[in-house]
């Protein structure tokens, strides 16, 4: 609740501070325009015609169903990864032995390219939803796992001792001591995982599915339709930017501010 209140109170200033990001993005569009003028519309259509194509896709109703399918797969994989990654990561963080044992495994998971998992997933799950969902899960799981592990490992022992000495009730220990600390590590990991899931799902769809944004990209590629390709990319990146900067980043700042303040006296 307090998180929500802080989020609402800081919203106008936060939104206004977004002008700097808008300026950077507009500079990117200017560079895009310049490159398009240099290389020609076949290689790189200019931003205006890309946005016009995107507008047409949205207007014709073609965009939302594909985006919805993609979002469903990404979020399903992400939810699985967040649930299992957080739980297992916290569990591993509580025990020194478990965290020691799990680190090399995480390295293996992080080091395996998602495309390799995708090939395996295609063999295991075929052409249905299972392939992209599994690929997203396996790509996001180690990120969340490491975040949770670190959150649990870095709990301040002095605070733990103090809680024991003062005989804090379990609920208080959980919600005022452990949870804020752990969340300050978990939340950024979740956001990173969200970005990863969004990227990986498009890749998985491109190679394995008949619907979703990735499949639409594959179609526009086979038609050599650069404008439509860029329009789909614009839709995916735009949605991610909106979710991340309007929803998650303010909460993340709030969560991390707690961590910074907590570490200051040390």
């Amino acid at each position: 609740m307090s998180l929500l209140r802080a989020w609402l109170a800081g919203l106008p200033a936060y939104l206004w501070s977004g002008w700097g990001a808008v300026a950077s993005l507009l500079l990117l569009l200017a560079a895009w325009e310049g490159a398009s003028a240099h290389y020609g519309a076949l290689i790189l259509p200019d931003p205006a015609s890309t946005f016009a194509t995107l507008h047409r896709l949205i207007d014709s109703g073609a965009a939302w169903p594909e985006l919805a399918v993609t979002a469903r797969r990404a979020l399903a994989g992400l939810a699985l990864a967040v649930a299992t990654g957080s739980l297992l990561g916290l569990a591993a963080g509580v025990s020194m032995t478990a965290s020691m044992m799990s680190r090399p495994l995480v390295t293996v998971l992080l080091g395996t390219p998602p495309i390799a998992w995708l090939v395996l997933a295609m063999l295991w799950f075929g052409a249905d939803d299972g392939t992209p969902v599994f690929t997203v899960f396996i790509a996001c799981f180690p990120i969340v796992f490491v975040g949770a592990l670190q959150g649990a490992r870095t709990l301040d022992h002095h605070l733990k001792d103090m809680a024991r000495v003062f005989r804090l009730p379990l609920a208080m220990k959980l919600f005022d001591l452990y949870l804020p600390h752990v969340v300050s590590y978990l939340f950024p990991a979740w956001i990173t995982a969200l970005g990863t899931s969004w990227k990986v799902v498009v890749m998985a769809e491109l190679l394995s599915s008949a619907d979703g944004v990735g499949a639409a990209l594959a179609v526009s590629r086979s038609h050599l339709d650069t404008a439509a390709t860029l329009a789909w990319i614009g839709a995916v990146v735009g949605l991610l930017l909106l979710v991340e900067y309007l929803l998650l980043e303010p909460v993340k700042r709030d969560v991390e501010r707690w961590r910074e303040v907590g570490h200051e006296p040390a």
Partner: protein
Amino acid sequence: MLSATLHRICPPSDSGHPLWLCGFRPFFLFAALSAPLFIGLWIAFLAFGLPLPAVAGGPFVWHAHELIFGVALAAVAGFALTAIPEFTVTPAFGQAATRRLAALWLAGRIAFWSSGLLGAPVLAVSAAAHLGLLGSLAWLLAPRLRRDPERRHLAFLWALAALAACVAGFYAETFLDAHPGANPARWLHAALGVLMMLIVVAMSRISMRIVNAALEERAADPATGVTTNIEYRARPPRRNLAIFCIGLTTLAELVAPGARIGGWLALAAAAALLNLLNDWHVGRALFRRWPLILYGVYVLMAAGYALMGAALVLDGGFFSAGRHLAAVGAMGLAIYAVLCIAGRMHCGLPLDERPWVPIGAWLIVAGTLLRAATALPGAPAALLALSGLLWSAAFAIYAWRMAPLFLASRADGGSGCEGILIH
């Protein structure tokens, strides 16, 4: 309070009319008198067909050249001659230098106005007068700006150099008029871009004082119940991003006028200017007259670039409206603010709290909005004349209120540019 630290070493006191006591006096007077005069002539031309001085490039070039290299350059010269010695804690410039520079400014007006009648040699004189004015300013200021240990104010020197480049480009292309592809007007637009950057640089210095004074005043007033002391700081990263974006926009327009890439850059400049206002959101103190006027400069500048950018990206017909929001609005208001603030303080007087100051500012804003509104379909022709009239009125009021100060000796015993003296 505000100017407790402004007590400066008195300049070598040479005798002469009080007008020459400090650089800002003649130049602010030039700016305040020429602004209504030049706009008046322009309206008379548009509304009644009264002829303007014939110059190469025609009436539009005369209009832009005179408002940029006449009015704005006078304000820049007055500001630089007064503020740079203050910023660098060095003595003011002598009266002889001020007289020379003022003569160059007047020579520039006379030569340019008669260049259509008397031909290329006089046009060359005009070029020499303008380059001479900017060159002398740079010559006078450069040693002080470079001697400053941190060289914090070197940006002013770059701005003068860029303005000189614009003057050189303008006159070079005017001489090449018959040459295909010659487009002298683009150098005037580039000069406007340079002036926008100069405004951002100069306002960051002025606003630190003005906004913090408003904050202190508010904190000192027991009625407001303000206890926490917020401090305003003009942060360099945001300012530099804005200057960078305006610079790119200006460059794009100079190289490829009307290209869409310039539109995106102008939109980026607008966003960067709005981003700059993050520093300014300090609560109610912002609504005091001085901070609000300076805030308005950025708002109008952002609106101008946004409109110019949108016009280029969407192929709209309102590019000129955007340009005038920046030129008439942001530049007009910035000049007015600087004239009001520096004009009073360096006469040894506290800021003017009489109602004519905000009235003038609102006249400029109203004139600007009307000028932008002329781009709307079906706008009556009289709107343009009314817009010019309102805008000119602000500077006429200023001249009426401030000229007596500039033409008289200082009442506080000061003998030059120094701020309010503490006895």
